């Protein structure tokens, strides 16, 4: 099957699953287990839980989705992850984590695909960290929301990846057929993750500023220079420049985004160097 055909069919399958609430998403077992461990400590607060949980975009999105649902009287409101967790409470959160841990593991038989999966995760965390720092440096009050927006800007990627892994298992285990290589695998994700991410974000009624970042974080909004979308756009380019990304990269295009963002958001070069210093160390650790 050609990559184009696979993309078309996969997009159709995913959109249908999203609309009918039949999408199963794997999460990082290490994150879920660590959060459960924290919750066992009666003195632990939701701030500590949020700090760990924000390492996994899918888990964070699930918590956010639940907290902003009508059942919690919070539909459509802007909210941080910590606020979302406080709204859910320990009991519901534990249920969510147990459910999440029970999903199939996020592993491929192809080591290169596994490496790409890790990088997809790390890129999301890196964009979250950078977006938060960028807005905090500009004095914007919304820097915590920026983390979440950065974390979720590519939420479609793990969604597509999870279904690709499901297909891989079916084809290789059940039908003993070959599977696409890591280059094609990333190509498929790059081609369809955006519409899938938007459909998911809208279906889950994530806060509108976050949906805007999922929809398009590729150009700057000149009318609102310190917006979440601008911070995420800039952070995305910086994370790529730092080498934390998977897939193809147009280096000239990315450098232009950094050049524009420095002026649009108002970040000096000294601050820029500080932002990216030690970034890789800050985003590794919880994937395994």
């Amino acid at each position, binding site marked *: 099957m050609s990559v184009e055909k696979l993309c078309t069919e996969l997009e159709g399958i995913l959109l249908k699953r999203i609309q009918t609430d039949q999408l199963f998403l794997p999460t990082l077992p290490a994150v879920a287990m660590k959060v459960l461990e924290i919750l066992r400590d009666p003195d632990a607060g939701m701030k500590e839980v949020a700090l760990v949980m924000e390492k996994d975009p899918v888990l964070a999105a699930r918590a956010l989705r639940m907290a902003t649902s009508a059942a919690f009287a919070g539909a459509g409101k802007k909210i941080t992850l910590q606020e979302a967790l406080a709204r859910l409470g320990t009991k519901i959160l534990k249920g969510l984590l147990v459910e999440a841990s029970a999903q199939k593991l996020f592993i491929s038989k192809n080591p290169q695909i596994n490496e790409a999966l890790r990088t997809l995760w790390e890129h999301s965390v890196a964009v979250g960290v950078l977006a938060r720092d960028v807005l905090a440096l500009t004095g914007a009050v919304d820097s915590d929301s920026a983390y979440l927006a950065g974390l979720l800007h590519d939420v479609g990627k793990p969604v597509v990846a999870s279904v690709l892994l499901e297909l891989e298992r079916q084809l290789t285990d059940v039908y003993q057929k070959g599977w696409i290589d890591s280059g094609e695998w990333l190509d498929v994700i790059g081609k369809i993750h955006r519409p899938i991410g938007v459909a998911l974000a809208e279906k889950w009624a994530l806060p509108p500023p976050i949906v805007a970042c999922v929809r398009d974080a590729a150009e700057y909004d000149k009318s609102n220079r310190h917006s979440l979308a601008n911070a995420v756009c800039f952070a995305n380019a910086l994370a790529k420049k730092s080498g934390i990304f998977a897939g193809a990269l147009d280096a000239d295009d990315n*450098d232009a985004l*950094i050049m*524009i963002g420095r002026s649009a958001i108002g970040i000096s070069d000294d601050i*820029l160097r500080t932002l*990216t210093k030690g970034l*890789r160390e800050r985003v590794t650790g919880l994937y395994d």
Partner: protein
Amino acid sequence: MPAILTVDDSRAVRTIVAKQVKELGFEVLEAEDGVQGLEQLQTATVDLVLLDVTMPNMDGPTMLQKMRESGNQTPVIMLTSESKRSIVAGAMKAGISDYILKPFKPEELRSKVLSVLQGEPGAQGIGSADGGSAAAAAELAAKAEMSVPAPPSAGPSTNAARFVDVMVVDDMENVAKKLRSMLPAHVSLVGFTSAQSALASCREKVYRVVLIDTEIPDVNSGVLAQQTRVLQPHAAVLALALRTANDVTKEVKDQGFDDVVFKPFRPESIDDFLLQYFDNQDFLVVEDNVLKVAPFTGRADRVDRFYQRLQGVYGDALEKVAAACHDEVVLDMGAPPLEGDRLPKFIVAVIGKAKEYGMTLSLVGPAEARKALGGYTETKDLKFFASVQEARAGAAA
């Protein structure tokens, strides 16, 4: 004098740019479009071009392309309202040095103009240089030279070499030496006798306070202060001036200085200087739910200032304690001055603010302070302890 060419079809933009650039001490040439811009480049030597994108007759990218094709490698900063990445990426390939999005702040223009003229790398190497900044800092530290070294006990570490507390720019070498002798050893100081060497150092180090003589021969101190501010945006820039019958403080502030330090230096004015720029951090320390005030050690005429400073900082400190969800806040006053009714007035203000956050106040201090507060209705029933430990035990009981 470096010359800068601004190419923009908007007269308003050219006027603003020309004003900012002239204030930096540079000559300015103007052109309305790319055609005029290229003509100017044929007749004049220019050190930097500030180039708009969308213009009639010939747009910015075309002018840039023609410049490069003809072998003209003059640095170009793109100054535009165009933010499409494809256009900026194209301009970057043609070798622009930097980019400014309109509308822009004067500081951004000044900073980028100076950076480009001084050969700064701009955004190049960002990201891929993870740790590169540390190497750059080490290189800068290696280059660092302390013109007026502090006593040996305060020798700078590798890190500290880049961060210097005070820069003195005065054509009389003795001024820096005199100030050095009056400052405590832990305050580092570098002295320069020329504006050029001072500005060069501003590119390499980070200063907390910059003192500039108002009477350096052949130097406009106001312009030097502005250039310093661009390079050291976080530093306080103060004038060094002689006392005269004029209102010197107003005069130097009009020139762009933050304040003035008078020559010859007097011990009390150096005390004030230290108090204002170096001793604030330890004045009121927050640890858990305890606010600890630094002991008052000054003369009687400093009492008002002591309480004024407390009034200025206690609100934020209380907010920190409240944000950590404490129900009780402990204020350790150390050894407060007891003259007049300043202490009870201050304590009443703290009680009120703490109440707004839903917290109760316990006070720690000497018996004299307890006695002084006992004479006022608002403070006589206050929970008072001799030590922080006792206050915590009292709260837990």
